[in-house]
């Protein structure tokens, strides 16, 4: 375990590119949504839209800033840092133009929330996927660089 930790630290410190499991954007298995494109995922998580055909009110589930997928997800999907994303959301929240994503601590919490409510969209590490949720979009992180 220690060796793995040291390796990750080394990669982060040296800004090294290395393989990272893909991230799945998910919704409830009961949702009318079938698939999203990259523009839709980016616009949703930047708060530029809050509805999709068939779902009038979408509520986003985010992972905590400490959770591994979060920075990678935003970097690949939106090209922005967590600070830029947060600043954008604060603009919307204090303009009355959007409710920010609800933060949960890990993949398992995202899955349990999303499975129970058709209005929810979240993202998880691909390895945690189960049958209660369906994948709307795959964020390919293989070529992604770990942004500090």
């Amino acid at each position, binding site marked *: 375990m220690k060796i793995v930790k040291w390796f990750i630290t080394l990669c982060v410190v040296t800004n090294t590119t290395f393989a990272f499991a893909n991230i799945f954007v998910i919704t409830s298995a009961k949702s009318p949504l079938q698939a999203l494109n990259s*523009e*839709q995922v980016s*616009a949703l998580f930047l708060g*530029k*839209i*809050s*509805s*999709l*055909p068939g*779902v*009038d*009110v979408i*509520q986003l*589930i985010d992972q905590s*800033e400490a959770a591994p997928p979060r920075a990678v997800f935003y970097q690949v999907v939106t*090209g922005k*840092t*967590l*600070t*830029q*994303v*947060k*600043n*954008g*959301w*604060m*603009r919307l*929240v*204090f*303009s*009355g*133009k959007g*409710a*920010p994503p*609800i933060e949960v601590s890990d993949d398992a919490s995202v899955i349990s*929330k999303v499975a*129970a*409510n058709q*209005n*929810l969209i979240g993202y998880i590490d691909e390895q945690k996927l189960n049958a209660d949720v369906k994948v709307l979009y795959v964020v390919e992180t293989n070529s992604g660089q770990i942004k500090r």
Partner: protein
Amino acid sequence: MSRLHWLHKVSFSHIHLLVFLLAFSEVSIAQNETGFPQLHVTGFVSAVGGQVTNTQVTSDYAGPLTIKGVECPCYIADWANGGMYADSMSFTPESRAGVQASYRITPEFSLTGQLTSRGTSLTPDLQWAYAALKLNSDLELQVGRKRIPLYYYSDFQDVGVSYPWISPPPEIYGWEATNYNGISMRFNRQFNEININASAFTGSEKVKDSSYQQFYFYQKSNNVNWNNLIGADIEINYDALTFRAVYMQAKVETRIPKDDFNSLAGLKAYGVAINFDIGNFFIISELTQLTRDFSAEDYSYRAPAYSIGMGVRIGSWTPFINLGQYKEISSDKEKYQPQAFRRPSFTLRYDIDSHSDIKIQADTNSDLTNNFSSDSRIVRISYDRVFD
């Protein structure tokens, strides 16, 4: 709309309640999670200190030697709230804190309120108090008290972390009214890669003892009413490019009983904003014009203004340069003496984390018409933070 006037009158205990809610927001959000109703409490604070570093007015200065009892040269940073810097360090002009509570009763229906306290006025102001109803996937109806969405930063001009300056350019964001009571309809939709956000709004606002007017009529009670306010805006976002256009008109009634002063003006405001944000580089620009037509007194003036800035993000640092200008053009210089200002500035922002930053800013303000506040150099520092 006058029935909504009670919304101004909020007792001080409300802010205590909201601060309490803010402190426990983590708990309340965690309890409610994704079910309904949901309570979401957010807040912001900006501590801003600054001073004018030169002490002499220019030799050709012909304006008042004091403004609001303070010796010129001075720098008006916030016209709406009376924020002005002079030659001693002060945290009063622009420091502010706000708390916002949003109560989502169903996925479609929510209530939102925001209170803001300022260094210039510690009694909290009710900036927002409205009900929002989502009608379908594209349309939302909002009723109550809101910010006038006049220019790009108007809605969130108090939230320091959301822009690169210490505060939005006063050349554009300098108004006697910032809020209104009324109704608005918002449209939001994605068309392929283009996101569109548009709104139409109507209402009115009464400002008692407007700080803006007190720059001119110090220690004199005044009443400013913006009636028949109506406007619309559209924001188009495509990849790195954001474009916004707005039009608004209102009837502005200004009364200063002590001077037996009474005026009525037709106000029209137009604005275009173009922002470009690619990778670590960004440009933000805004071009506006307002006209005030005092037809009963047979004169008018128009005031074109612009602000253009560019910055680059280098890790946690964002150096940013900006140029702002405001220039009044009067139809009759006997009846109305125009003012004009130009101000280059440099800001350095450091992001402490995703919720807070520190900024320093240096400005050189030129009083181009030499008739109000004189030329000044200003240095400021701010700490901005949001809570969510």
